[in-house]
C-alpha cells in the first residue's frame, strides 16, 4: 500500500506489541505532510517512544501500515532500510552519542556512513559545530561535555544529513527552560527550511510556543483524533526564513 502523494509519514491502523504482551500501540492512524511541525504528547507509558521508534524505523509494527516518504516500510526489504533511515534525523532522549568518539566525529558520523569524503565533510561539520556553539569543544568526548552540550551535539548529528524528517524524543527533558526554548527555536528553524519535525514531550508549556503545530496525544497506546485532523491534516506552506542563536 502506498500513501498519498507527498505524504512524509502515513500510519494506518498501526498496532505494536512486544512479544506476547498486550499492544502498546493500537489502531494508530495519522498523516504528516511535508514541512509540518508536530508535538507528540501523553503520559509516561502512553506509547510515545514506541511510536517514535516506528517513525525512525527502529521497529516494525505488529499490524497496520507505516508509509514513509510514500513507501510502505512494513514490507520493505531489510537491505533498503538504511536508505530510508538516512532521510530521518533522530534526537534521542538520552542523546546516544558514541562515547569514544569526539564531538566532531559524532557529528560527522551520518555523513561518513553516507559515503561523504573526509575532504568534503570537514566544512559542514565544523560549520554545524560552530552553529551549535561547540566549535571550541569539537575534540571533546561526550563524557567531558555537559548535558546541554551533549544535547547540542546530538542535534547537530541529527540535522547534518539534511533529514526530511526530524524526530526528537523529549529533547527538553534534560535542559533548563532557556535551553529548552532555544532548542524549540532551532526545531522551528529547521522546520521552516522544509524539514518535517516530530517532537515528543510531556511539557505542555512547550506546545504553546509553536502555535501552528499539530498536536498528537497518546493515551494508553491510542491516538486521540476526534476531528480526524491528524488523519487528514490540512497542508501548510513553509518559508525558510528563521534564524537561531545559542
Amino acid at each position, binding site marked *: 500500500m502506498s500513501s498519498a502523494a507527498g505524504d512524509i509519514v502515513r500510519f494506518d491502523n498501526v498496532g505494536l506489541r512486544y512479544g506476547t504482551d498486550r499492544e502498546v500501540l493500537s489502531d494508530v492512524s495519522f498523516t504528516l505532510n511535508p514541512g509540518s511541525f508536530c508535538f507528540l504528547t501523553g503520559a509516561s507509558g502512553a506509547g510515545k517512544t514506541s511510536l517514535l521508534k516506528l517513525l525512525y524505523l527502529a521497529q516494525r509494527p505488529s499490524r497496520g501500515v507505516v508509509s514513509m516518504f510514500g513507501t510502505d516500510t512494513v514490507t520493505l526489504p531489510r537491505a533498503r532500510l538504511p536508505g530510508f533511515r538516512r532521510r530521518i534525523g533522530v534526537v534521542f532522549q538520552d542523546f546516544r552519542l558514541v562515547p569514544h568518539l569526539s564531538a566532531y566525529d559524532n557529528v560527522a558520523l551520518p555523513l561518513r*556512513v553516507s559515503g561523504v*569524503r573526509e575532504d568534503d565533510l570537514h566544512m559542514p561539520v565544523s560549520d*554545524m559545530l560552530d552553529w551549535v556553539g561547540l566549535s571550541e569543544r569539537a575534540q571533546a568526548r561526550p563524557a567531558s561535555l555537559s548535558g546541554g552540550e551533549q544535547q547540542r551535539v546530538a542535534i547537530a548529528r541529527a540535522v547534518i544529513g539534511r533529514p526530511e524528517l526530524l524526530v526528537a524524543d523529549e529533547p527538553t527533558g534534560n535542559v533548563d527552560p532557556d535551553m529548552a526554548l532555544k532548542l524549540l527555536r532551532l526545531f522551528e528553524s529547521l522546520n521552516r527550511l522544509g524539514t518535517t519535525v516530530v517532537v515528543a514531550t510531556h511539557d505542555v508549556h512547550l506546545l504553546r510556543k509553536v502555535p501552528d503545530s499539530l498536536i498528537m496525544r497518546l493515551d494508553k497506546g491510542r491516538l486521540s483524533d476526534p476531528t480526524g485532523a491528524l488523519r487528514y491534516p490540512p497542508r501548510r506552506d513553509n518559508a525558510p526564513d528563521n534564524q537561531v542563536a545559542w
Partner: protein
Amino acid sequence: MKSPPLPARDAVSGDRRFRGTRAAQLVPHARLAGPMPWVIAIMIALTVIAAAGGLALSNLVSDARADLAGGITVQIVEASAAERERQTRQAARAMAQDPSVSAVRIVPPAELEALLEPWLGADIGAGGGSGAVPMPALIDARLRGSADAATLQRLRERLRSAAPAARLDAQSAWLGPVFSAINSLLWLAAALVVLLGLTSAAAVWLAARSALGGNRATIEIVHLLGGTDGQIARIFQRSVAFDAMLGGAVGLALGLAAILLLGQQFARLDSGMVAGGGLHWQDWLLLAAVPLAGIVIAVLTARLTILAALRRMS
C-alpha cells in the same frame, strides 16, 4: 543571528565506502591486549605442526612405496652351507633369466652379518664357518614393474626347480602393516587440521559475538543513522583480520620453529626410512598458506557471525 548551516542536498551523500580507520574507530579494540591474536597464533602453530607431520608421513610413505614397489627378496633356507651356496647361485641365475627382473644381487655374507649384528652380535658366521649360526642366504632383486601377484607366482615356480629351498617375498608386503599404520596417522593429521580449523572458527565466532555484544549500543546508533549491515560487518572483519594476521604470523613462526627442531631430532636418528619423511618445497609453500587460510576462515566467520547477529537486531 544565523541560520542553520545545513549542507547542500547533494553534499550529504557520497560514493566513499565507510571503511578503514575512520570506521574502525567505532569499535575500540585493544588488539594486543586481547586474547584473540594469541588464540589464533596457538591454533595456527598447532595446525602447521599437524600439517607438517601429515605431509612428512605422506612423503615417507610415497618414498618407501616407490622404493619397495619393485623390490623382492629371495631367502635360501638351507642348513647345509654348501647346498645353500649352490642353490643361491642357481636361484640368482634363474631370477636373472626372467624378463620381469631388472637386477639381481646376492647379498654378501659380510653385509648380512652387519645387518644382523645389532641383534645377534659380531662374528655370527653367516658365511658358514665353524660354529656359525645357520643363516639363510639372501638375494636382493628388482623388478621392472611392481611386484604383483602374477609375477611373484611365476618367479616362485621358476625357483621351485632351480632352488627348492628358496622363499620369495615382495619387500612391500613386509611393510604393509607399517604403511597401514602410517595411513591411519595421515588421516589423524588431516582430522587434526580440520578440527583445529573448526576450533579457530569457533573462537572467532565467540570473539565476534562478544565484540558485537560489547558494542551493541554503538551498532544500534550506526544502524539508525543509516549504516548498513555490510558496513558494520566490515568494521569487525577488519579487526578480526588484523588479529588473524598477527596471530597467523606468530603461529607460523612457532610452528616452523617446532618443525625445524623436530626435523633435526629425526635427522639424528639416521634411519633410512625416516630420511624419506622430509618436506619438499611444495610442502613448505602449503605450510606457509596455513596462516592465510586461517585469516580467510577468521574473516569469513566474523562476517557471517556479525551479519547473522545484525539480522536479529533492528
